[in-house]
Each structure stands twice: as C-alpha cells, then as structure tokens.
C-alpha cells in the first residue's frame, strides 16, 4: 500500500450537500467521491486537447451535446 497524506477540505454548505448527495447515490464515502472526482478529472483533462470535444449522447433521442470542461 502506498504511503498516504492527509489534507483538510473546507466546503460550503451547498458543496457539502452535493458531496453528501453524490456519496449516497454512488454508494461511496465522501472521501471516495472526492477521490473518484480526482481520477475522473485527470482522465478527462488528459484526453481533452485543442480540437477535441467531450460529448454526452442520448441514444433514445439520438442527440449529442457537448460537455464543457475546464
């Protein structure tokens, strides 16, 4: 197991509400949600280059919309 480091995270009420909602929905701890978010952001950030888009596809409606990513 890799060595682990601790950090403190200060969240607003609204941010905490979202975090708690996601933790319940994803069946994860709040720490688990934050780690998942970090993994996702790194993965997407790696893939998004100039000229590339991240799309969300609705198969039922045959619609695609671009997901804006920082």
């Amino acid at each position, binding site marked *: 197991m890799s060595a682990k480091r601790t950090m403190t995270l200060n969240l607003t009420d609204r941010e905490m509400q979202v975090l708690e909602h996601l933790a319940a929905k*994803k*069946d994860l701890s709040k720490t688990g949600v934050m780690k998942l978010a970090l993994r996702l952001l790194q993965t997407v950030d790696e893939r998004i280059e100039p000229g590339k888009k991240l799309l969300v596809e609705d198969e039922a409606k045959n619609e695609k919309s671009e997901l804006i990513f920082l």
Partner: protein
Amino acid sequence: MNESIVYLHKAENNTFVEASLFDQVTDEHLAMWSNEWVPVMKKHVGDLKLENAPEDSHWDWKKKLAEVGHLLSYQSFALICEGDLQGLMIVSNVRSAKIQEQFGKPIVYVEFVSTAPWNRVEINKPVKYRGAGRIFILAAIESSREMGYGGRVGLHSLPQAERFYESKCGFKRLGPESTHQNLCYFEMTSSQADLFCQNM
C-alpha cells in the same frame, strides 16, 4: 507496488505452486512479455487465418501501458510464476454499473486481460498453469473493494471467453454492445463478488 502471494495449478505434476501478483506492471514485466510471450504467440499465429488467431494476439501491452499507466483511473497487474510472466491485466475505475440494482454506481472495469500463450489449451496442450483468469478476476474484485466499490466489476468479453465469465465466475450477461464492437457486456454485483471469492 504491492506483491500478493497466489497459487496456480501446475498441470505437469498436478500441484499448486506459489505465484506473485503485482499491482503494477513494470518495465521488467513488459520485457518478459516482449522476450518470452510474443515469440510464442507469433509462432502460433504464423499462417493462421485472422479469424482463427487468438482474439488478443495483436494486443501491444507496451503501447497500452504507455497510454494509461500514468493515470489514477487505471491500474495494471502482472502475474509471475516460477520466474515467468503468466498474465497481464489493466483495469479502470471511473465507469458506472449497468445492472439495474446498482446502476450508476462506480465499478472496476476490466479493460484488458490476457494469459500467457503456454497457459492456453488451443496453443499448448496440456497447458502449463491453470487459474490465471480466476486470479485476475479476484484482483479486480479486491481492487473494487479497496476503492469502496463493494466488489462491483464489469467487462466486455471476447467471444472465446464468454463462457468462462458467465459460468465459472458468475458474471451476469447483459448482451452485446455496438459501442464495443458488439462484444458482450458482463457485470458482477457485490453479492456475486462475495460468492466468487467464497468459491476461490
């Protein structure tokens, strides 16, 4: 990098032998793949028609690891026994479950898994070691549990391996998916993962 002791069945003398499962594929493992595994596979494929060649025979593990090895969302595994590389696997951990009862919850997804050519009955009869496939599924389940995903695992299976995942491992078959070359998607719930581990 962690090393776990696991056991493979050695067909030659019908015994179980100690093996090491590493939770990170290293350059040394890739050199073993390149020097020992690839020549055997190439010799087997030889003049075979494309449709008769092992479905993963063209996989380039060095290239795959170079693309995803640095990302937190991917994890790689190597299985070593008696000094030789017996299998490789890459999993990802940012996909969502598709089975209704766990829909939207994160899973560990098996991106690629292969066993060495001398462990395949269509190439080497009798095979050298049995059990690599089950060890990799166990590793995926353990990874899922460590992530807090409760053992949930999913994968798209090559046609030759479908029966193994459904009958031997207890995955639920969800059907072919056009977004994945019509490969059949399989998924395991937490309780199915518990059952698989009990039967190991």
